[in-house]
């Protein structure tokens, strides 16, 4: 990938709206030359989004905790965390979250929770989804494209149940496997539509073999290049921290997910997370835009 003629051809393709082949993507995923991969991904993100970086303030709250206390007024999305044991508990959690949320969207649960609730309640998955949706759930928090078996069936079921603006996640696939997962995500989008975002960095951090900086920025760049038909590539601001999340913006990401909705840090000090977030976005040469939980921009 260091041969500039190859790079120029790919850059030209990306800038003129062409799609890179699976072979090109595989070669980019294998090169240690992350700057070239980053430049290609950055060119594509600029073609799609200009210099805009969106972010969403999320109030995360355990399904068994008090939503009234955990949801600050500035949250734009309420995300239920944890795995309730029964469908009744899950539905009740969604209803209480919705009661506090008002017109703000409620998300929560992972695909594996839906499967578990389906077997514990002896109801088909589609019915579980319909019940959760009727209670007010608007999005699943984790649809790990690397960990679900029949992803086409999953996306189809979710679409049929009325879920749109889906967010695909990655649970813990190592770098090499994530490329295949991103190509599959692009194929799912081409087939079913309705996928709004992909979060290519793992939701589970492997303490024994933590991902490296190269791993992470390459995963972000490859997600952008392999799935140009999925509009949003996002990084979890709290999980990955300001330094890596900011650098990821220059490697193809255009959205910062899970920004704290409260100005109060856990240790009681005020850290003005929003100020820090906007400073990081601007220092990387981008413009910040706040969005709601349904990916609508609220203010710039």
């Amino acid at each position: 990938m260091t041969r500039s003629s190859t790079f120029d051809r790919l850059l030209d393709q990306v800038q003129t709206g062409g799609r890179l082949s699976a072979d090109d993507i595989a070669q980019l995923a294998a090169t240690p030359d992350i700057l070239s991969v980053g430049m290609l991904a950055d060119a594509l993100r600029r073609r799609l989004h200009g210099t805009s970086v969106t972010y969403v303030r999320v109030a995360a709250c355990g399904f068994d905790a008090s939503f009234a206390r955990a949801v600050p007024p500035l949250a734009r999305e309420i995300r239920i965390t944890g795995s309730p044991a029964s469908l009744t508990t899950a539905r009740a959690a969604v209803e209480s979250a919705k009661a506090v949320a008002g017109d703000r969207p409620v998300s929560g649960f992972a695909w594996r929770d839906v499967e578990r609730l389906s077997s514990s309640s002896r109801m088909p998955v589609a019915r579980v989804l319909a019940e959760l949706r009727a209670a007010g759930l608007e999005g699943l928090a984790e649809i790990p494209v690397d960990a679900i078996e029949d992803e086409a069936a999953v996306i189809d079921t979710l679409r049929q149940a009325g879920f749109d603006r889906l967010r695909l996640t990655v649970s813990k696939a190592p770098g090499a496997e994530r490329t295949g997962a991103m190509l599959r995500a692009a194929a799912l989008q081409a087939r079913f539509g309705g996928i709004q975002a992909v979060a290519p960095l793992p939701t589970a951090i492997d303490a024994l073999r933590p991902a490296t900086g190269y791993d992470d920025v390459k995963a972000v760049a490859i997600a952008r290049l392999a799935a140009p038909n999925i509009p949003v590539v996002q990084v979890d601001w709290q999980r990955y921290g300001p330094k890596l999340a900011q650098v990821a913006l220059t490697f193809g990401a255009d959205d910062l997910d899970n920004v704290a909705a409260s100005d109060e840090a856990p240790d009681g000090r005020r850290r003005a997370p929003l100020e820090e977030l906007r400073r990081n976005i601007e220092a990387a040469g981008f413009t910040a835009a706040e969005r709601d939980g349904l990916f609508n921009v609220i203010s710039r």
Partner: protein
Amino acid sequence: MVDELVRNVTDGARVTAAEALDLYRHAPTHVLGRLADAIRARKHPDRVVTYIIDRNVNYTNVCVARCNFCAFYRPVGSAEGYVLGFEEIFRKIDETMAVGGNQLLLQGGHNPDLPIAWYEDLFRAVKGRYPGLRLHALSPPEILHISRTNTVSVREVVARLVAAGLDSIPGGGAEILVDRVRKLLNCYGKASADEWIDVMRHAHRAGLRSTATMMYGTVETDEERVEHMMRVRDLQDDTGGFTAFIAWSFQPEHTERGGAEATGVDYLRTLALARIVLDNVDNLQASWVTQGGKVGQLSLAFGANDMGSVMLEENVVRAAGASYCMDEVEIVASIEDAGFVPKRRNMQYEILGDPVFRARDVPRVLELATARAAGDTSVPEELRQYPARSRAGKQLRLAQ
């Protein structure tokens, strides 16, 4: 304009201050990275990335300089002030050698109660006990402090310390080598920009090699960041004594100055710019201590060819809120993961060999040690032999 500059740098041209500023302000981040990476590849074509196993020992935290960006120092007379005893330092060296370390990085506050004889005796004792160990000690402001409190010229301080065993000098205390900035940071008194440069010039002329550092992200302008690099480049043209350049961002927590830390992208851009400007300095260190392991590793794509130190102990940056730890296993993994070849080095940047942990069992270091255990206020026995200058120091001696 930037395109033309990029072509010139690609062709190997040296940049002026104005051109450096233009690149820093206007070149896209990846373009800066690529320029820096190409220079790294020219200087280090074998894809070797080095690191050193050493221990960063802060012999005292008592300091009269009171820089307002520092969370480490304690004023004279503070109950939390300490001076390490020789035996404590020997113990730390033993631990360092057990994991394959060969160097002691020794720096501390400007303690008025440590006369030059204390340093000479310490260095002699260390060298007597560990003849193969390299002493990388005392940044220029410390040397100036010793010169001032002992009314001995800088040249003589350097000569005496070299005679006692000093091998090389760390480039600390440079902050930003512009007096306007130094006055605002309250570090002009410890050393003006010219004084810092002068100490380095003396040291280089005395045959010592040193590093050069930059602490950015406080009050300096972009122009002043570039001016700092230019001052280092000019002295390097004169003496050739700098082995490496190390940039790190101001760590604001717990400091009097406070404020926000410069961002990760700013770090990578500054690092890349340093590689472009400092065409006469061979080695550029990644500061994973301030940037964390991930951005630390990404530094290797932005011009760095050295991962710095596998540290066993760190007090200064930790006091200001950053507490990253990487042992040899992790440093080597991050170098290899980025497609480079890891090699151990010494302070002169000579290659010593392959990773130690691949040759023999060494204990993992999963947490950095501190200079002193919390609450340990013991006063070392030998301190009694050295006269104190401060009132608090004299009282402490009497109480011993």
